[in-house]
């Protein structure tokens, strides 16, 4: 896919990883940390079994969030949210009269290098782990909902039952023990691959080349580029069509890149208000 080349946000400075992208764990103060871990979801081999959705729910004890028939192919999960941390999309396309294809893709939190949810969280409930992933601490979150509006992917949600924000933890409890996250473990086709991000990027590049040589011209990587608007995703994808077809934003940019400018405008506006109020008392005395 084509991605914007952003020069790196005002808050995005610090140590770089092997690929030249930012090392989020080191930036967050982990001096000695394990390699950045992530997901590579190769949608070209997804068979839409939803084992990832089920395994995630089971392992993380994520509550049920209703069952409704959406009419969107085999997708009755509809979207990621507070109680849906993996979501399998189904897209039916007529490629030529009489010929069709069925795209399936398991979506997940992107664990952005520059994570808007983490930036805007006013309690510090959202943290960067030593693996470079982004996790909500349930006992700190006060349910303000700011992260929900900040996420450029619409991933994180607020759960009705407990009022807190929830999302994929990249199975923080499992990977700390050297285990594979539940979704990747359950995936029968290795569409969901887990590992050190550097390795995954190499693997994804090789797979992309393989597919392109085989004539799959539509194949493209999504979220793998450290130069994109979120500094690269910790969970990235191989897609077979435009991102928006899968419900993904085509060129997401973390909102906090513009925050220094916003603060400058806020300061100017506040000063203008103070000046206007002060001057309003002058003039003709009543």
């Amino acid at each position, binding site marked *: 896919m084509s991605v914007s080349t952003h020069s790196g946000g005002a808050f995005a400075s610090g140590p770089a990883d092997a690929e030249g992208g930012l090392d989020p764990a080191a930036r967050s103060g982990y001096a000695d940390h394990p390699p950045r871990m992530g997901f590579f979801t190769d949608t070209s081999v997804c068979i839409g079994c939803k084992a990832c959705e089920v395994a995630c729910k089971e392992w993380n004890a994520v509550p049920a969030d209703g069952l409704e028939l*959406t009419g969107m192919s085999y997708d009755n999960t509809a979207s990621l949210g507070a109680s849906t941390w993996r979501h399998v999309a189904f*897209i039916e396309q007529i*490629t030529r009269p009489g010929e069709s294809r069925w795209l399936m893709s398991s979506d997940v939190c992107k664990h952005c290098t520059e994570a808007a949810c983490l930036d805007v969280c*006013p309690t*510090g409930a959202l943290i960067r782990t030593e693996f470079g992933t982004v996790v909500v601490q349930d006992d700190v979150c006060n349910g303000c909902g700011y992260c929900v509006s900040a996420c450029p992917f619409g991933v994180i949600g607020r759960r009705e039952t407990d009022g807190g924000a929830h999302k994929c933890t990249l199975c923080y409890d499992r990977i700390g023990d050297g285990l594979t996250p539940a979704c990747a473990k359950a995936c029968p086709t290795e569409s969901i691959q887990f590992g050190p991000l550097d390795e995954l990027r190499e693997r994804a590049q090789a797979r992309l080349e393989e597919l392109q040589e085989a004539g799959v011209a539509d194949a493209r990587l999504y979220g793998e580029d450290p130069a994109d608007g979120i500094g690269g995703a910790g969970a990235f994808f191989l897609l077979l069509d435009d991102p928006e077809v899968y419900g993904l934003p085509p060129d997401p940019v973390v909102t906090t890149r513009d925050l220094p400018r916003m603060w400058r405008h806020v300061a100017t506006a506040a000063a203008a208000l103070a000046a206007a109020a002060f001057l309003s008392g002058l003039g003709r005395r*009543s």
Partner: protein
Amino acid sequence: MTPREARGVQGGGQPPRAQGGPRGSGGKGFPPAAGGYPGGRPPGPAQFRSYYGRPVLKEPVWEALDVAGYLFLGGLAGASSALAASAELTGHPELARVAKTAAAGAIGLSVAALVHDLGRPSRFLNMLRVFKPTSPMSIGTWLLTGYGPAAGAAAVSAVTGWLPRTGRAATVVAAVLGPGVAAYTGALLSDTAVPAWHEAHRELPYLFVSSAASAAGGLGLVLVRSEQAGPARNLAVVGAGAELVAKTLLIRRLGPAAEPYQSGRAGHLMEAAEILTAGALSAAALGGRNRVAAVLAGAALVTSSALTRFGIFLAGRTSARDPRYTVVPQRDRIRRQDQSESPAATV
């Protein structure tokens, strides 16, 4: 295969059930949803693709009454505190007292609205465990923590006459922090992925402070005798004028992305607010010391300020709910980038 043939194929197009999206506002800039098509050929500017018309973003979880109400009341309070200090300095004690009382009442209500809107209200204090410049909500919490007690103390002292020196100090602190309280909410909304709010990040702080000034001045006009209300009238006129300018700039600079501000319920609210402001502006400017004109103008300004905040809030929600406001500008950005990288290629 043409895009027309592909229409109705999933991957785009209308969702099979009503999404409640603001479709059909049509013609103001953004193209209608197009059907999915295979083959990776980019759609023309007249269409965009989506996953069954579903939103890319999550709609803000905030209640309109709580958060738009907070934006309005916080602005009213902050500007009132600044007005109170000015009135006190320039010998308008009645206006100063009224403005301080209004500020304390408004900030009390607005903080209550904020806490009510937390998913876990009992954890309000969790926001005081960190200070994060990357989070406007964190900065706002600290501003309110300093401002609220100062505004309260200034009001109590003004009403009871107790501790005049403390009251004076509190008045100054509230006047310094008040404009910050009124302005930071611009960053609070625009530091999100919500298209209508983020795209307006240059204009929102100015729109919010001018709307706050207009409301604070307006309230002064309603509650204070004309002889004492001079500063309120001045602030109301300046604020209302600036509000009209800021809105015009916002709409012009956003271009097609301004559509959520101009259509649907948000559009109606913004339009009503504009009419009220313009009417009040002429009444306040021309009515002179006519008490009835002043009260009507003031009430109109206060109402207009509230309507503006609700309009902005709803516009954001609309823009998050409809994938077109997410996908089309991002596609355009990619297209522009591609063009600037290879000038020969015309898409």
